[in-house]
């Protein structure tokens, strides 16, 4: 089944076609979400939302772009929304705590995501340091950087996905790397890990 047939099938509610699409693109979508949210369980939940959106809104697919472009767009948008909502939630929680009084903080700490419990502390700290640095990147830099580093996409394809010029992609990734380098070097000098 080629892409057009696959989409046609999904538009007609064909579950088999949908399953093939999911199997073909599951790795790609989960990996993209992971590059933004840095937690495997969250990335898989988000990837499921992405495929549900595809199934329910298949009629919106015009066929001008590749399926992967469409999937990348939804995956990055949903992941960024997820981060935004989390930040908002944390903000309201901190307000709530200020006014209502501190809740059990130990609970929150134990809920910090750790996908690989056998990783030694230095690896975990190093990972946290990098995720914190990536978290601070502006959304566009973060999207371009993730697509380039996690999915190893060429700049031209990133430009299509983000609907921006090739020069903009180059500039976004360059600035993202500069920013990350600055934060990591700062961390090194201040011995933050």
């Amino acid at each position, binding site marked *: 089944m080629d892409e057009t047939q696959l989409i046609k099938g999904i538009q007609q509610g064909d579950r088999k076609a949908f399953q093939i699409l999911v199997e073909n693109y*599951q790795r790609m979508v989960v*990996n993209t979400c992971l590059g933004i949210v840095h937690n*495997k369980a969250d990335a898989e939940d988000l990837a499921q939302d992405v495929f*549900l959106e595809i199934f329910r809104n298949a009629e919106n697919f015009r066929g001008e772009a590749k399926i992967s472009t469409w999937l990348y767009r939804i995956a990055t948008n949903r992941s960024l929304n997820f981060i935004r*909502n989390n930040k908002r939630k944390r903000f309201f929680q901190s307000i709530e705590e200020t006014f209502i009084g501190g809740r059990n903080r130990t609970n929150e700490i134990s809920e910090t995501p750790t996908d690989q419990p056998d990783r030694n502390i230095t690896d975990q700290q190093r990972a946290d340091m990098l995720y914190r640095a990536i978290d601070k990147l502006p959304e566009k830099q973060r999207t371009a950087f993730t697509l380039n580093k996690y999915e190893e996409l060429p700049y031209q394809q990133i430009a299509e996905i983000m609907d921006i010029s090739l020069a903009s992609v180059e500039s976004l990734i360059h600035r993202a*790397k500069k920013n990350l380098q600055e934060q990591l*070097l700062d961390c090194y000098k201040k011995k933050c890990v």
Partner: protein
Amino acid sequence: MKHDYIQNDLIFYLDNELSVEKKMVVEKHLEECADCRSLLVFLQDGMQVIEKEKDPEASHFFYTRLSARLEEKPKFQAQSQWLQLLQPAVFSLLLVIGIYGGLKIGSNASFPKLNQPATIGIQMLNDFETEPIESFLLDKL
């Protein structure tokens, strides 16, 4: 000075994105400078986190869970969209009520003070001008 010049480009050196000339300059400096070498290793280890994290093993029950969710109606989503709209609306309303209440209380409270000598008022305003509001608030903490 030279260290900074080198350190600004280490990430591009790692990604092999430097011009041949620049790369040679960086490599020559790295040979001589232990500080920049250890910084390079730190940066490399940091960026290596991505290589370790990406492309995780696929979950076996991904499609099973997904097809179970296909049966659900997208009711929850509609509900959460409502919540998303409601939350900022409630907070904005509280903010408006707060500002309005504050203005009301403020205007009531300031009336009797008008009878006091005008110089006191001016003195207070001048104090506010010289003292930024942040330090004013912090001093009281």
